């Protein structure tokens, strides 16, 4: 796949091509493309003059980086201790059933990606899920459907 890498160059320029900013650069690249494309990692390695193997190693180390293409909306379901006890499994199953995807997968129309994370830091609202960084607390199956439909409708406009 051919990608326009101009924005990668711009991002690297913003950090003065300094290799100690690698994680920040990768975060910005992911914000731009929604995931980390192979060719973008190649360009990062080239511009920072560090081995591609090191860039790849860093990109696979952090779970917030994705090397696979993701949907426009990222759903993160919390499986921290509190959420786990208060019904994480039901929430996840409801999302899976509603969207037809399981953990780590993306819907065919590239709208939603489902991720399970260890803790979103909102244990008082357990069980919690977040869509694009926005937190939804005290979830149940009914609320899951409402929230997801909200984002799905957004797509049409």
């Amino acid at each position, binding site marked *: 796949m051919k990608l326009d890498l101009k924005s990668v160059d711009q991002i690297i320029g913003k950090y003065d091509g300094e290799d100690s900013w690698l994680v920040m650069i990768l975060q910005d690249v992911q914000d731009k493309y929604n995931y980390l494309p*192979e060719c973008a990692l190649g360009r990062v390695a080239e511009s920072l003059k560090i*081995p*591609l*193997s*090191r860039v*790849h*190693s860093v990109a*696979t180390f952090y779970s917030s980086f994705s090397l696979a293409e993701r949907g426009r909306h990222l759903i993160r379901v919390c499986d921290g201790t509190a959420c786990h006890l208060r019904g994480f499994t039901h929430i996840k199953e409801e999302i899976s059933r509603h969207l037809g995807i399981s953990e780590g997968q993306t819907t065919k129309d590239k709208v939603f990606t489902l991720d399970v994370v260890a803790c979103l830091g909102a244990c008082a609202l357990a069980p919690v899920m977040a869509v694009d960084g926005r937190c939804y607390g005290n979830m149940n199956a009914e609320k899951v459907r409402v929230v997801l439909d909200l984002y799905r409708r957004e797509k049409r406009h």
Partner: protein
Amino acid sequence: MIAVFESKKMPLVKTVVNGKHIEVERDRWALDVLLEMGVAVPTLCHHPAVEPYGACRLCVVEARKGKWTWLTTSCDLQIREGLNIETDTPSVIRSRRMSMELILSRAPHVESLQRLAADLGVGRPRFGPHYDIGKCILCGLCVRVCDRLIGASAISFVGRGRRRSVTTPFGAASESCTGCGACIAVCPTGHIRSFVEESALNIETWNTRLEMIDCKVCGTPFTAAKLLESVQGRLGKGGSLERVCSKCRRLQMCKRLGEAFHQV
């Protein structure tokens, strides 16, 4: 990045190893000192050519300084004044056994690991790998040698937790691998597979295939073209490499020596 080993003269400090009082240069690695003294210390991730890493945890010792005692890997422990090292206390043995059992459970069929485990009194591991992970124990020797000594950085650790493994970027054929074989040479378990086929070197584990050069005497392919190129590049104009395999070179040398003897 190529490692440079500086040898700075350090002052001698007093240390105790297993009750024996010795004087050693300050800042030396404890493991090196132990091995020099003839103390048996099991290791898997240690290699004198690269800096210590502390991955295998088999070289743990009990260190004591003043009233503090702690278990620590000796490969990355530096000798200081008044350091007391014990290598066979019950907690050292217990710790080594546990580490060994965990390592063995990753690759239970590797003979070199089985032997080391037997030496430490570890039998069949209680845990098992839940999926096939080959023979790799993630000691990181190949990664460090490729990066620090060879300077190719063709491989690295990928992923983390139980998914951590060593591969080339994206698991694709490596562009920077020269086929030097250093990773194969240092691997303690023989995880990295390679073979020669149709005058090409296949490093199967890294999904990399490299064209080889034929020996100009016997005609058998003997080294990767890329390796010859890279070594020539390092030598610069200072020297030229003969395209002769080691076997033929030895023969040539023997012949030359023989001739020299006859002349005398």
